[in-house]
Every structure is written in C-alpha cells, then in structure tokens.
C-alpha cells in the first residue's frame, strides 16, 4: 500500500514535470532554442500568481487563486511577446550557443526581478490552505495531498489542450511546419515570427501553471528555479527533446522513479532522491541518445 501511494504521488508529480518539460520541448521543437530559463519562468509565474491572488479580488480562495493564475498568464503573454521580439529575434540565424546564452540571460533577468521585488523569504499563496487542505485525502490507507490532485487535473487539462491544439488544429499544423523548416514554411505563407511568439506564449503559460503547483507544494522562493530546471530538463531529455508527448511521458517516468525507487533509496543514502532522475537520464541517453520518443537524425555524409 505504501508503494501504491508512492506510485500515485509519483504520477501526480510526474504530470507537473511533464508540463514543465512541455514548455521546454515546445520552445526547442519550434524555435530550436534550448531554454535554460524554464525554471525562472516557473519561478516568475509562482510570484505573479502570489501577487495577483494577494489582491483578493474574489472572496472565494480557490477562485481567487484561479484568477491570480489567469491574470499572471496575461502578464506572461506580454512577457512572451517581449522575449521573442527583443531577446530572441535579433539572434535568429546566429549560433545555437548565442541563443542558449540569451536564455541564460533571460533566466537571470527574471530571477533577479523576483528577488528584487519579493525577496527570498519563503511565501505561500494567499488562502492556499483553504484551497489545498493540509490534511490529505484518504482513500483506504492511501493518503494523497489535495495539491497533488488539483495539480494533476490542471496539468492534464493543459496537456490535453495542447495536444489537441498541436495535432488537430491548423494552428498546430503551422507550428509543426515551422518546426521542420522555418524558411520553407514562410515561403508557404506561414509567418514564422508569429509562430515563434505564440510558442513562447504557450511556453510561459505552461511554466506559470507549473509555478502555481510547485509554489503550492514547496512554498514560493527562489529554489523553485532550480527545482523547475532540474526536473524539466531530464523529463524533456528522457522523452525526447522534440516530442511533446514524450515530454509528458518523460515527466511521468521521472515522477514515478523519483517517488518510488528514489524515496526507497533515500532511506539508506540520504539525498540520493534528487540524483535518481539524472541516473535515469544517463541510462536512457546511453541506450537511446535522442530520448525515448525523440526524432533520430540521419545525416548524409
């Protein structure tokens, strides 16, 4: 029963990692940008939700937190436009390293802003304990914290919406077309600058949702940055850097292993739980260098 509980918690955590990895994978797949700032985007999201829900515009704590997420997401859309237009666009056509360094700079700017604005004290969302009661939900002998239940529901909704968008709509077809060959897609009438902007928008919104969940689980402070990157990156790499479905499966696998094997080993070797994802990553990359669902590149010589 303990193992079952850990597996359920692992799956719940995995959906959150999957959403963070989705943000990472999407920006990589469409724009070929390795977004090192993903953890900082998650951090900014949790602080913005904290700030907006702190306004207490609605009496109901759950609705207030949801409104905070919606308002933060709107700000995220504006930041996404600014990120694409002023930081990334001038570097298109430059080396991949230049783009990576720009995402490092973006991360520092976002993190620096949150530290200047909100400091480093651990904070919690206003009314959080009413929305996510500290007493877990009991199903028989299994105990599941409410925050994990809601985070799983939220993550699956955003992931399902994204999959629908990517696979079933013309918008998704355009994203897929740009991801394969931006110049040719442009010649076929697709504005690549617009698609890049929309991609950053989705990336920010997904990261902000993860910010709400991680903030609710761990509290809000700068450590979210490291937690975000430390889980998004291996989940994305395990699933395959260019596979949105792989991102979610990578996240689930990571969550499961971390909460089962990781938790078990942690009793004997304290701290190993945080290393387990990287051990899994190493094994996957040795066996399948492009990740479990990544596209294998075959180049002519």
């Amino acid at each position: 029963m303990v193992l079952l509980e850990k597996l359920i918690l692992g799956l719940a955590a995995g959906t959150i990692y999957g959403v963070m990895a989705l943000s990472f994978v999407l920006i990589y797949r469409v724009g070929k940008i390795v977004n090192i700032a993903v953890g900082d985007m998650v951090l900014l999201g949790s602080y913005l939700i904290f700030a907006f829900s702190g306004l207490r515009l609605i009496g109901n704590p759950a609705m207030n937190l949801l409104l905070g997420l919606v308002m933060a997401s709107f700000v995220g859309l504006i930041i996404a436009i600014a990120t694409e237009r002023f930081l990334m666009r001038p570097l298109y056509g430059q080396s991949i390293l230049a783009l990576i360094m720009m995402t490092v700079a973006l991360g520092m700017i976002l993190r620096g802003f949150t530290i200047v604005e909100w400091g480093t004290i651990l904070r919690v969302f206003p009314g959080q304990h009413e929305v996510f009661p500290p007493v877990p939900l009991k199903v028989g002998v299994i105990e599941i914290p409410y925050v994990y239940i809601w985070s799983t529901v939220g993550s699956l909704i955003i992931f399902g919406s994204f999959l629908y968008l990517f696979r079933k709509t013309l918008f998704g077809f355009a994203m897929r077309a740009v991801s394969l060959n931006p110049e040719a897609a442009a010649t076929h009438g697709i504005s690549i600058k617009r698609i890049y902007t929309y991609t950053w928008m989705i990336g920010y919104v997904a990261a902000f949702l993860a910010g709400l969940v991680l903030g609710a689980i761990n509290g809000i402070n700068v450590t979210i940055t490291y937690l975000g990157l430390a889980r998004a990156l291996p989940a994305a790499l395990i699933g395959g850097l260019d596979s949105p479905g792989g991102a979610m499966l990578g996240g689930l696998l990571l969550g499961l292993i971390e909460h089962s094997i990781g938790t078990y080993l942690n009793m004997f070797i304290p701290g190993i739980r945080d290393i387990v994802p990287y051990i899994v990553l190493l094994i996957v990359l040795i066996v399948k260098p492009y990740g479990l669902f990544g596209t294998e590149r075959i180049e002519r010589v």
Partner: protein
Amino acid sequence: MKTILEVKDVYLYFGGVTALNGVNLKLKEGEILALVGPNGSGKTSLLNCICGFYKPQKGRIIYKDRDITKLPPHARAEIGIGRVFQTPYIFHGSVIDNIMVGYVTKQKNPFKLMRMKSAVEAREMAERLIEFVELEMYRKSEALGLPMGIRKRIELARVLMWNPDVLLLDEPTSGLSIDEKRDMARYILELNEVHEKSILLVEHDLSLVHDIAERVIVMDAGVEIAEGSPQEVVKNPEVIKAYLGE
C-alpha cells in the same frame, strides 16, 4: 497580355560569388514561362529572390504593379505568389494535414486557426485538391515516407490552398518517372489553361519545356543569354555553347 510579375535588374551575391548578375524578367498574365540553363546558372536563386527566400543586394521585384522587394516571404504568399520547391517540403503528418496547412496563408487570426470550423473548411478545400492531384488513396498516409512523385503533388496541392495567381515551380518533374512526369505536365497545363495561373517554371527537361512553355528564358552564370519560343532558343548558338561548351 499584362505583366503580372517583373524582375528588374536583380543582383545577388554570396560572398565573392555572383549568383545573379543583373537579371531582368517579365512574366505575363496567364502564360507559362520556362527558365532553363545549366546547373549553377542562377535559376533557383532567381525563384528564391522572387518568393523572398533570398534578399537581392540590388534590383526590384514587382508583382501586380507593386514593389514587393522588401516584403517577407509569408507576405508574398498572402498576396498571391506560390512556390513549389525542387525537393518537396513535407512535415510529420498525414497527406491531408500537409495540404491543409496551406490554409494558414488565408487566415492570420490564431484563435480562428484553433477553431474546428477553420479545420473543417480547410479539410473540404484540401479534399478537392487531393482529387485534383489524384492522391485519394494516400489521403491518410504519413506524408514523409512517400515517394518523390507523391510528395511533389502534396506540395503543389498545399500551395494551391491559398489560390495564388503566380506559381513558381522549381523542377517539378525532377526525380519522377515518365508516367509521373506526364501527370505533372497535365496538372501544370490545367492550372494554366483552366485555372488561369501564370507559371514561372524552372526545368531541365527540355522536351517538357518544348511541350508546355510558351516562352523560354535561358540563363548561364547568373545572366540571361537568350529569350524566345522553345523552338527559337534551342537553335541559339549562345544556348548551344552554354550547354555543350565551346
């Protein structure tokens, strides 16, 4: 006939290499104009300048009396220029997905592109074009794994989704079997004669050019060396020299 597309004194350099050296060209409404010449003569570079893939260092591109030299590639597609590549540009997805994406050119609003209504409309258009290029049996096949001839038809159908007035076809029959070449020639003629498309065609197969083109421009080393009917240009000494050497 009125000129629909004009290339005026276009120069294109790649470092020290001159790809286009003052090229001039006029495509008239409703005609099929063929661009021929040896490899490296600048034919594809010229198409790339017209569709906005390359930015020429000098010269102008005029489309329907409008200077489009500075327009980005997607905007040129929106105003009615359709480009078909020599190596078809296909992404992961079914044949119909690959064709439907051409609808994006007609609809800029991202929210409308997310709606099912747009997808349904695009699917109906794509179905008609699938019939035109005779790909009914491949409708749901993964497009990337299909043979060259099929992929060329997919790309042609995608470009037709936004109903361009000018088609830029880059070696549409290269890599095709004799039967496939005949089919492609039939589509090109129908597009020209029935659907009144003006077509600029880059082609190495001179017998095909002879059969379908009204006028031919011959290029060599980035300059135009001859112009006239297919029958005239093959007799031109400059053309013979360019193809066969001294």
